[in-house]
């Protein structure tokens, strides 16, 4: 009996001492959920490097595609089991909801420590997407709530070889909308396909229209419209809608662009079947994978001459947030700080062909990426406007754009339809 008891005591002793020594020595494991298939191997590589440097294990888990990822994050938020680091793929409104529910750590104190050393390393427009300014309409405390990993701009690209075939100068892409429309006629005559883009996934057509809304009426009027102070039936908005009619009629749009998904558009452009594409800077990596020999250049959407410059969507491409309820949040913040340091950002940029969020890592990027990065001067993003349009209005607007392209509705009809939805949503909001 004594022998048996001694045996049990010995086992317990070994177990407890073994565990306690392990518990004291072990470093936490940081769990990161992400959706970036093209960056996964680079992240794994960096995680291994970080573990070697600090002993902290970082576990990157990939959940793709982005739609599935987005659902997973929402489900995890409801179950209060979000990982230490995650991303939010959605509108600023959703970002605000996550913060209000206490899921996201306010990073402002970390960003502003040591004379804002961390904050200052980023492009201001990249950080702006993750910031909530004073008096924002979402009711969120002023601060920085996310860390940009890379930046992106959504611009146009053109095929230099097809430009030559059309008798155009590949060093001089169209600068004005009229020049662009004139090329449309040449494209039509040559039997080629013009602009391809994922306009079937409506957000890209929305983005294109938004560029011209800024160009035609300026930021203040666009934001005033969102606030309900200017109607969509205003002549400037109708002018924006007319651009789509003009594009359709000139032949500058590829057949079926209205039902095209962006992956198909990327394949068409990479396979030299389309003269123009409207795409984000992530396309550099995509085109490289599909056709390494593709000769193309990036350009701003050709502007309508007037008082205001063209604007493009840009800023943070992908951002990570820290789980405010995580017991490893301090370690998570340290890791993100390291991940956005110059060397790591340069490595990510080199391996994945994305623009770095750290402005000090821009020195050795390829020319085509540099062209995209120059677009940052014109960049804006709905997430930095401080106000959001009603989803129903955005949907009506996007559907309307598609209707104009397929010749189903006139710009005036679309403007009127959109304004009706806007009035309805405003009335609903007032009633709440």
């Amino acid at each position, binding site marked *: 009996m004594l022998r048996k008891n001694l045996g049990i005591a010995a086992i317990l002793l070994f177990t407890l001492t073994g565990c306690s020594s392990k518990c004291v020595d072990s470093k936490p494991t940081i769990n990161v959920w992400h959706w970036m298939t093209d960056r996964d191997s680079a992240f794994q590589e960096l995680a291994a490097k970080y573990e070697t440097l600090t002993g902290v294990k970082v576990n990157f888990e990939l959940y793709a595609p982005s739609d599935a990822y987005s*659902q997973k994050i*929402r489900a995890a938020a409801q179950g209060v089991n979000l990982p230490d680091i995650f991303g939010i793929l959605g509108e600023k409104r959703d970002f605000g909801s996550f913060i*209000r529910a206490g899921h996201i750590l306010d990073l402002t104190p970390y960003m502003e420590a040591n004379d804002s050393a961390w904050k200052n390393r980023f492009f201001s427009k990249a950080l702006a997407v993750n910031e909530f300014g004073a008096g924002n309409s979402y009711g969120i405390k002023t601060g920085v709530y996310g860390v940009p990993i890379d930046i992106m701009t959504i611009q146009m690209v053109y095929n230099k070889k097809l430009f030559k075939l059309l008798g155009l100068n590949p060093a001089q892409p169209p600068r004005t909308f009229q020049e662009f429309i004139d090329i449309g006629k040449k494209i039509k005559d040559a039997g080629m396909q013009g602009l391809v883009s994922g306009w079937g996934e409506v957000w890209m057509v929305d983005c294109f229209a938004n560029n011209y809304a800024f160009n035609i009426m300026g930021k203040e009027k666009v934001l005033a419209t969102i606030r309900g102070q200017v109607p969509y039936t205003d002549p400037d908005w109708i002018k924006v809608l007319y651009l789509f009619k003009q594009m359709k009629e000139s032949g500058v749009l*590829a*057949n079926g662009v209205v*039902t095209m998904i962006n992956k198909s558009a990327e394949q068409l452009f990479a396979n030299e079947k389309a003269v123009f594409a409207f795409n984000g800077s992530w396309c550099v990596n995509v085109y490289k994978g599909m056709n390494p020999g593709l000769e193309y250049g990036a350009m701003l959407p050709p502007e309508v001459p007037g008082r205001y410059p063209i604007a493009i969507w840009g800023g943070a491409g992908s951002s990570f947030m820290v789980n405010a309820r995580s017991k490893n949040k301090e370690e998570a913040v340290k890791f993100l700080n390291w991940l956005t340091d110059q060397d790591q950002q340069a490595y990510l940029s080199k391996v994945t062909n994305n623009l770095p969020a750290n402005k000090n890592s821009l020195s050795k990027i390829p020319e085509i990426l540099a062209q995209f990065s120059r677009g940052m001067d014109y960049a804006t993003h709905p997430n930095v406007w401080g106000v959001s349009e009603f989803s129903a209005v955005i949907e009506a607007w996007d559907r309307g754009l598609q209707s104009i392209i397929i010749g189903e509705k006139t710009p005036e009809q679309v403007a009127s339809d959109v304004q009706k939805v806007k009035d309805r949503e405003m009335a609903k909001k007032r009633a709440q």
Partner: protein
Amino acid sequence: MKFKDTLENYIFVAPAVAIFSIFYIIPFIWVFQLGMFEWDGISFTKTFIGLANFKEIFMQDRSWWQAMWNATYITLIALTLQNILAFMLAWACDREIRMKNFYRVVFFIPPVLSEVVVGMVWRFIINDIDGANIINRMFAGIGLPHLMHNWLSDPQTALTTVALVHCWKGFGWGFLIFLAGLQTIPRELYEAARVDGANAWQSFKKITIPLMIPVVVVVAILTVLGTMQVFVLIVSLVGGEFAGHTSVPVLRILASMRGSSRFGYACAQGITFGMVLVAISFIQYRFSKKSR
């Protein structure tokens, strides 16, 4: 003794009742309950709004009813074209024809393929710019160039094209069920009819059709339930709702959840849609009972 028997019976059915309650009844009640809240799917707080979401669906949401009509249109094509085709092929394979086992396998291939794959393959077959444009080339080849068309990007033809691809994908299920039903009809009935002087058409009308009605009802209900919920095929064929022309209820529910972050409204749409499906199935069932 009687109490013991009753208790025993309850114990036997308890697991099934528990599973059904946990996985069907409770979620249904929960979804209905969520349908009465304004909720973004993220916050822990929800605002009770009573039946306002349902009122909005019925009184204001034109997109929803357009989506319902689109799904009904696809369903009508599936109910007629797809099921007639399935029935005819099953009838043919039920007879003594050569290679009938081969046909059975071939007809069952489309239903087992993923909807995404089917959508992408047909997009490739149909589309001119990012596809092989096979259909249009075929029209040109047989001297009908005026029929060449941008099938998926024209609002006049997009939904019908989707419906036809859906029929191609779905007829195999109906084929299998019809074939199984045909094989249960006693051969003696046909022989007796032949002895009595009935021709093939009379045998079909007087024996095959009446005895197949229960099977037809099952296939019709499955077709309605399956087709009304179609959406993956639409996304892979036309990229989404295409200015509302290919919008269907499930895509609307997804748009409410993901696009607008209106989870409460999406739940209300889900309940409305579910009730419509239940009502259709019930009507079909009553109709079949009457016709029997």
